[in-house]
């Protein structure tokens, strides 16, 4: 059964929900409670793995090389993403409670994520066997 429509609806509803929820959070009585504000706060303190994760998603969805650098196994790039993000999370958790990430390193983390997604977790990878036969 083709799940494309279902997945499209799930994505659409998720995005719509986030937008509407955020509008409510922006205009309610409480300040600084929007989704954007919270994620910014997380990323600038201990959870800067989020920045790299967003970069990886960009490289993965929109870019992507054709030559699979990690070989034929489709799960390996995914496992590496998880390992990489957990490593960044652990580094973040080890920081002091007053730690604030530098903006330029934040940018670097984003770019490194895009590079990873583009080269190692591409959706345009050609079938391994086709290239090497």
């Amino acid at each position, binding site marked *: *059964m*083709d*799940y*494309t429509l279902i*997945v*499209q609806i*799930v*994505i659409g509803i*998720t995005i719509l*929900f*986030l937008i509407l*929820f955020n509008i409510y*959070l922006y205009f309610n009585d*409480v*300040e*600084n*409670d929007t*989704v*954007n*504000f*919270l*994620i*910014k*706060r997380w*990323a*600038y*303190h201990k959870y800067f793995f*989020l*920045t790299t994760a*967003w*970069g990886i*998603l*960009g490289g*993965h*969805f*929109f*870019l*992507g090389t*054709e030559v699979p650098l990690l070989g034929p196994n489709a799960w390996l790039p995914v496992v590496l993403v998880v390992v990489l993000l957990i490593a960044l999370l652990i580094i973040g958790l080890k920081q002091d409670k*007053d730690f*604030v990430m530098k*903006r330029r390193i*934040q*940018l670097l*983390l*984003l770019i490194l994520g895009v590079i990873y997604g583009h080269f190692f977790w591409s*959706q*345009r990878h050609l079938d391994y066997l086709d290239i090497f036969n």
Partner: protein
Amino acid sequence: MQNLETYFETHPKLVRIVQYILIGLFVVLIIFDIILAATNNITISEVIKGETEKAFFVLTYFWGAVAINLFFTRKSKKLVHEVTGTIILFSIAALIYFLKIGPFLIETVAKIPNQPTQNEIRIAHAISMAFGLLIGYLFWRQDHVE
């Protein structure tokens, strides 16, 4: 940081609720995607890639703007008020969608108009990402964290 401490003392409940909702949503999406992949169905990644291959490019543009909004803060003065910036962001997105800037971009970049190569599609996406980053940079940044 001082203000943030006081803030969380006075408004702990709502913020905690928002955090739980976000984390819950994220976990549900990941599980959903794993199940899709494991049962050999189309995944979220493939649908998003499919949508952007239809060349509307709105998602790509939003990726860039959201990247700046979440992760590249503003230390200087605002160019426009946040609400104005959000309206500009969405107006441009609507323009991209209804004027079919996406297909137009691909036609422009491709040597053979109806047969863009993978590389040409990637270049068009990269342009769209850069454009999203630019609009985010100008109109949609958050205040820097102390």
